[in-house]
């Protein structure tokens, strides 16, 4: 007989031993159980209540339903993605906008901080401190800007000093949390023992370098925070509340603790809530530096842009003027970043490019000009021979000659007293000029101009001035006959006075004269 069969026999024997009333109740119960079935309606009524009452099983139920929910979502997306996207749409748009706004605000804040850090004298001092101490700049900056930062939280079993659980701020790590908590316990016990402190007034804080260690004791556990900076009094209150909450949440585990830290590993919410920091400048401020910087950049860009556009317009108008200038042929125009390259053909009789450029308010340096000479048919005269440099001594003779004035009697072609010698000297200069010019390969001619005094141009004045000029010409030919080929005479009357405004008789005497002008070919 198997175990089950034996059990069945024993049960049946027990039922037989029951009194009739008990047997009947048992039969009714059996019927009820056999007839009962869970209908969907029944389940629908029971399920919400069951979930409400799930209590400690809630986590397990959620855990069990997770794969089912994931599969359901996957199936929905597979069948018709629009359903899920439609359902999420009201949320996604808003979430994206918030995220974008936050990102832009953070970017502006970061840019502002960065600019502030570049331009701030204070931060330059910190940079110097960083170089001097060898510590990273970020560490120096945090030390100066941060009031405090709770970097580590330790939950320590009070009796044993064993670490129950520790949490640390991201980026902060201790060498060994177990050792830290045990040594902390030992140090507090050592100090308390050495100073004969009562247990209720044990060591509650230790300051070491940049760190403050605060310890708060509860009946079964202690909470220790390692804080960088100087914490405000509210931290102690936070510790007390946290410790109280821990003693409530982990009452059973603390009471029965014999080394197993697993119950404390699972739930770190209370400890993590202790990790916080306070920055000195916590108020949200407008990113002034960023705004000013961007405004300056925008204005500078706008200024340079407008300036460049205006200059380009100027240059274009100048180039058009050069192209339109008589005697200048524009071959090509090339713009580079710094200059405008022009290639032109220019008749020597045409205006200089420098003059045209200056007329348009530009500098010659703004252009790189490649110029070749050519003969332009627009000018009636054939081009003059290329101008060679005239030797200085010839020019000096010419200047000396030009300084000579030979005076005549009023209304006459006769020389005034003493002017005969002057005329002879001028004649000798003319001869010298002609001879010296020949030696240098030049042909020098001299133009004798006769003038008359007065303010009204009339035939008499012109006649007198021509008479005076011819008189000087004749005198030169008498000195040196070949000069006839090199000297010419003309009378201009009052048109080209030696003295523009005749105020005195002396002025009028000067205008009754002949003058000399040398021309080199």
């Amino acid at each position, binding site marked *: 007989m198997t175990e089950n069969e034996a059990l069945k026999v024993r049960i049946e024997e027990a039922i037989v031993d029951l009194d009739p009333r008990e047997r009947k109740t048992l039969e009714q119960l059996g019927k009820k159980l056999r007839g009962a079935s869970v209908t969907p309606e029944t389940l629908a009524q029971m399920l919400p209540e069951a979930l409400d009452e799930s209590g400690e099983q809630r986590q397990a139920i959620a855990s069990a339903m997770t794969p089912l929910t994931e599969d359901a979502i996957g199936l929905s997306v597979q069948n018709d993605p629009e359903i899920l996207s439609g359902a999420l749409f009201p949320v996604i748009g808003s979430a994206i906008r918030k995220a974008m706004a936050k990102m832009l605000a953070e970017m502006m804040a970061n840019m502002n901080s960065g600019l502030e850090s570049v331009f701030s004298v204070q931060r330059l001092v910190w940079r110097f401190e960083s170089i001097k101490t060898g510590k990273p700049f970020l560490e120096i900056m945090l030390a100066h800007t941060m009031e405090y930062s709770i970097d580590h939280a330790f939950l320590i*079993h*009070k*009796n*044993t*000093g*064993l*670490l129950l659980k520790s949490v640390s701020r991201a980026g902060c790590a201790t060498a*060994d949390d*177990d*050792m830290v908590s*045990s*040594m902390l316990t*030992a140090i507090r*016990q*050592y100090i*308390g*023992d050495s100073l004969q402190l009562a*247990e209720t007034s044990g060591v509650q804080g230790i300051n070491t370098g940049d760190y403050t260690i605060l310890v708060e004791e509860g009946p079964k556990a202690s909470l220790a925070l390692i804080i960088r900076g100087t914490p405000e009094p509210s931290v102690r209150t936070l510790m007390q509340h946290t410790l109280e909450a821990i003693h409530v949440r982990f009452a059973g585990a603390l009471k029965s603790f*014999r*080394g*197993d*830290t*697993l119950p404390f590993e699972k739930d770190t919410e209370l400890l993590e809530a202790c990790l916080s920091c306070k920055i000195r400048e916590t108020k949200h401020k407008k990113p002034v530096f960023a705004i000013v910087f961007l405004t300056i950049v925008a204005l500078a860009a706008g200024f340079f842009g407008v300036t460049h556009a205006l200059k380009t317009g100027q240059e274009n108008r100048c180039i058009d003027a050069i192209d339109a200038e008589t005697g200048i042929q524009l071959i090509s125009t090339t713009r580079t970043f710094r200059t405008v390259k022009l290639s032109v053909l220019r008749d020597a009789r045409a205006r200089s490019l420098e003059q045209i450029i200056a007329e348009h308010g530009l500098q010659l340096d703004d252009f790189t000009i490649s110029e070749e000479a050519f003969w332009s048919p627009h000018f009636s005269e054939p081009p003059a021979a290329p101008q060679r440099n005239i030797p200085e001594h010839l020019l000096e003779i010419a200047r000396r000659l030009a300084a000579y004035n030979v005076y005549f009697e009023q209304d006459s072609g006769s020389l005034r007293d003493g002017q005969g010698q002057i005329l002879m000297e001028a004649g000798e200069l003319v001869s010298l000029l002609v001879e010296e010019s020949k030696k240098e390969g030049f042909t020098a001619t001299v133009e004798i101009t006769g003038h008359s005094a007065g303010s009204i141009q009339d035939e008499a004045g012109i006649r007198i001035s021509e008479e005076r000029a011819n008189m000087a010409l004749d005198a030169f030919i008498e000195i040196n006959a070949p000069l006839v080929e090199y000297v010419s005479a003309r009378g201009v009357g009052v048109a080209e006075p030696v003295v523009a405004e005749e105020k005195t008789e002396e002025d009028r005497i000067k205008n009754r004269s002949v003058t000399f002008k040398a021309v080199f070919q």
Partner: protein
Amino acid sequence: MIKKKICLLGTFGVGKTSLIRKYVQNIFSDEYITTIGVKIEKKNLILDGNKEILLVIWDLEGSDDFHRIIDTYLKGMSGYFVVADGTNPETIATAQSISAQMKQFFPDTPSVLLLNKYDLAHVWAVPEGTETGLTQPGQMVLNTSAKTGMGVEEAFEAIAIRMVETQND
């Protein structure tokens, strides 16, 4: 992870720190530096192939009188060693005294008596076979040498096993 606090007691110079250093760091130095207050070390070990235990070892300063540390350093310990210098009968007598008094204050706490410096066999002061007579009821005794490492691992394993057994009771 199971964490257990164990303490080492004994008079000066019996080798408490050397035993711990040998066990934790596997190093030994002849240089004697007295321990002031307490030093703490830790070591992980595996029992029964899968039970991981973290031993937090409190190395206490040498003392003949531990009464003042009962409520401080000794509080919460799960096991303790009483260490004597096996070549020095005075330290053995002190260890016995400590063991007896500790038994009164911590009757259920596992303990092991360690007779250290066994490498100095030529001046060993404990006749063979008489070691168990030095112990308290329920206390284990082992010969150890921090210099050679003899018995060190066994000692810490033994106390760990006893602590786990006591926890399960």
